[in-house]
């Protein structure tokens, strides 16, 4: 077992475990935030697994999750806009903490990869992931105020 596998195991167990607990209990505003953070935590885990198995092509999973994970949260933010407007989530602390974790993972992987096209791909994934999750968090706390129906 190498260090990358260990990091992925600890990250996935702790991160997704917490996200699962958050999405299973509590008011709706906590559940949507936990759903958003679950993708933000799983994506670095998938990237670490790709490095752990020595298979650069597994990075595609991270790419797809970084693209579609925030889109999934936008779906909830848009179609639950009424419920969330009454009781808006405020979770900037966890959002930025998870974004920092994702950034640290991507930087560590970039250092391990060295300058190449693979590194550019990792940086694109990192930017999409962090940007996407911060925007999704913004959308959850009042991004769709003007949506009545439609």
């Amino acid at each position, binding site marked *: *077992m190498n260090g990358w596998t260990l990091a992925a195991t600890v990250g996935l167990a702790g991160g*997704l*475990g917490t996200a699962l607990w958050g*999405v299973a209990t509590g008011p709706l505003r906590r559940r949507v935030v936990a759903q958003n953070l679950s993708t933000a935590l*799983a994506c670095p885990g998938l990237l670490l697994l790709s490095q752990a198995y020595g*298979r650069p092509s597994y990075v595609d*999973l991270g790419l797809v*999750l970084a693209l579609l994970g925030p889109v999934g949260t936008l779906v*909830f933010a848009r179609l639950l806009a009424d419920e969330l407007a009454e009781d808006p989530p405020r979770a900037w602390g966890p959002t930025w903490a998870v974004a920092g974790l994702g950034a640290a993972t991507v930087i560590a992987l970039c250092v391990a990869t060295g300058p190449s096209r693979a590194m550019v791909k990792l940086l694109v994934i990192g930017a999409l992931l962090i940007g996407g999750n911060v925007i999704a968090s913004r959308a959850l706390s009042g991004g769709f105020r003007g949506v009545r129906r439609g």
Partner: protein
Amino acid sequence: MADAVIVVALLLVAASATVAVVTRDPVRQALVLAVLGVVLAVLFTVLQAPDVGLSQLAVGSALTPLLLMLTVRKVRRRGQEKGRGR
């Protein structure tokens, strides 16, 4: 020891699938299902089936929540219309 990550993924899948079954409200169930999709993708990856994992991510992270939430919205609107008609 290298199997630890497989055990973690299996436990996460079992836990989130159970939560998805015991959650009754469709909206909250859709949220749990989105997390279950991500966890399943991780399980497929650690079992060295990235093709299946990619399918799961593509379908489970945005498409399934969108279909479920649109259905919930339609059913709720229909319920409101019926309530007003009475």
